[in-house]
């Protein structure tokens, strides 16, 4: 069982079989995470570099833990205080990595396509940990794992992604992955934060939460980036909360309980109310645990196939 690609750059075009392989493998790794010794040896002797050109705490920690739990050697590289601030190009950074005999690269970059570029210039396996407003495949995989765990299958599952769809790589990866797995995907958010032609990705678009809430199994609530307000895309956080904030009051109108997901970090009582985030239908912390298992699975499947 091997993936069709040597890299994980995004979920667009990744087959159902490949996604299923990663999710099945992740389930086995979740069992490893429940053991007293949470470490297994399959990537012993492999060196992985985490190239984070954009700040991130939880994704980087999650990747680093996953790498260490697979017994890989880990090198961290953060943009601040590195050669990047001295003006080095991505290509030169990549070449230097190559010269240091690195086996795998996990990259986060503010520019769309940076991981794709890297995959063309280095021999190492490349894993996209978020590129610009493009894709964040491991986040979508962990979201899918969490839903599959809860519902048994993704086929026919109704998922709505709520918030700033325009700038969200999490939304794009989720749309590609969930559609491939047979889920019914919709998006909901202010018109100013909705990409043009988003319907072409095969999703239904809603501009009012009230219209979609009765028809979904799960809501994936995106973080609203506070700096967007300054750019005038929505008038105020209070207004955003009123119209697009997911609250108990709105969700309680649904005929059956709705699973609440959030990629974190949460702006409590802005996009999601505290009582729901901590409520019985929230799977937010489960997503974090599954994130580690999914990242172990991705690194294992890519790292042992060459």
């Amino acid at each position, binding site marked *: *069982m091997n993936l069709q690609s040597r890299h994980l750059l995004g979920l667009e075009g990744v087959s159902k079989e490949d996604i299923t392989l990663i999710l099945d493998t992740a389930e086995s790794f979740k069992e490893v995470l429940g053991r*007293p010794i949470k470490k*297994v*040896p*399959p990537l012993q002797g492999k060196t992985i570099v985490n190239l984070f050109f954009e700040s991130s705490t939880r994704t980087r920690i999650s990747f680093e833990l996953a790498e260490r739990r697979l017994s890989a050697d880990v090198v961290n590289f953060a943009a601040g205080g590195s050669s990047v601030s001295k003006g080095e190009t991505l290509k030169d950074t990549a070449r230097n990595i190559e010269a240091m005999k690195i086996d795998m690269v996990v990259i986060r970059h503010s520019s769309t396509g940076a991981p794709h570029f890297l995959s063309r210039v280095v021999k190492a396996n490349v894993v996209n940990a978020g590129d610009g407003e493009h894709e964040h495949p491991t986040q979508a995989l962990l979201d899918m794992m969490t839903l599959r765990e809860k519902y048994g299958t993704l086929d026919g599952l109704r998922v709505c992604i709520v918030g700033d769809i325009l700038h969200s790589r999490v939304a794009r990866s989720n749309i590609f992955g969930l559609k491939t797995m047979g889920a019914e995907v919709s998006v909901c958010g202010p018109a100013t934060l909705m990409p043009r032609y988003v319907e072409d990705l095969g999703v239904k678009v809603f501009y009012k939460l009230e219209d979609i809430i009765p028809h979904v199994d799960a809501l994936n609530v995106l973080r609203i980036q506070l700096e967007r307000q300054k750019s005038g895309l929505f008038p105020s956080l209070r207004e955003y909360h009123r119209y697009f904030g997911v609250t108990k009051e709105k969700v309680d109108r649904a005929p059956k309980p709705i699973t609440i997901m959030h990629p974190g970090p949460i702006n409590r009582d802005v996009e999601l109310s505290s009582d729901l985030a901590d409520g019985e239908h929230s799977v937010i912390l489960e997503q974090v645990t599954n994130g580690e298992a999914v990242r172990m699975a991705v690194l294992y499947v890519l790292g042992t*196939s*060459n």
Partner: protein
Amino acid sequence: MEVTLKTQILDAGGIRRTINRLAHELVENNKDLEKIALIGIRSRGEHLAYRLANLIKEIEGKEIPVGTLDITLYRDDLHGRLDQPKLKSTEILFDIKDKTLVLVDDVLYTGRTVRSALNALMDIGRPAQIELLVLADRGHRELPIKADFVGKNVPTSLSQEVKVLMTEIDGEDGIVLIEKEEDGK
């Protein structure tokens, strides 16, 4: 063209009698059945372990815990294989600390699978003792490993393959020796 010759080593009745004997040997050699647990190596070892546990229950009236072990992550040939083995879960739902574990597998050959299994078990806990039970021992060890309980010794050459069939997976019970001969030899 490749010609394949199959010789039956044991039929279903033979398998039943052999597993029966192994269950009795296990009981005879382990006075304190409270401490015993069976660990089947996926996938045929798993079914073998469950059959042994059922027999021991018939013989002694004691329920023996059974766990299954997936050794994929501990293989020494994980890298460089064209087709990766699919990772399955290890399911050991009891504490192995201070237990006498009986590792159960279908065929003992190079000993590399057992080596992987020992490492995997050590990462899960610290058992008091580990014993090895196999249905067939075909020789050609590459590591210093020896089974404590052997169903059947099957002398083989390297060009042969020993295949254990189990009803749960293969639809029938038996052990066959497969001879691979190339044409013209």
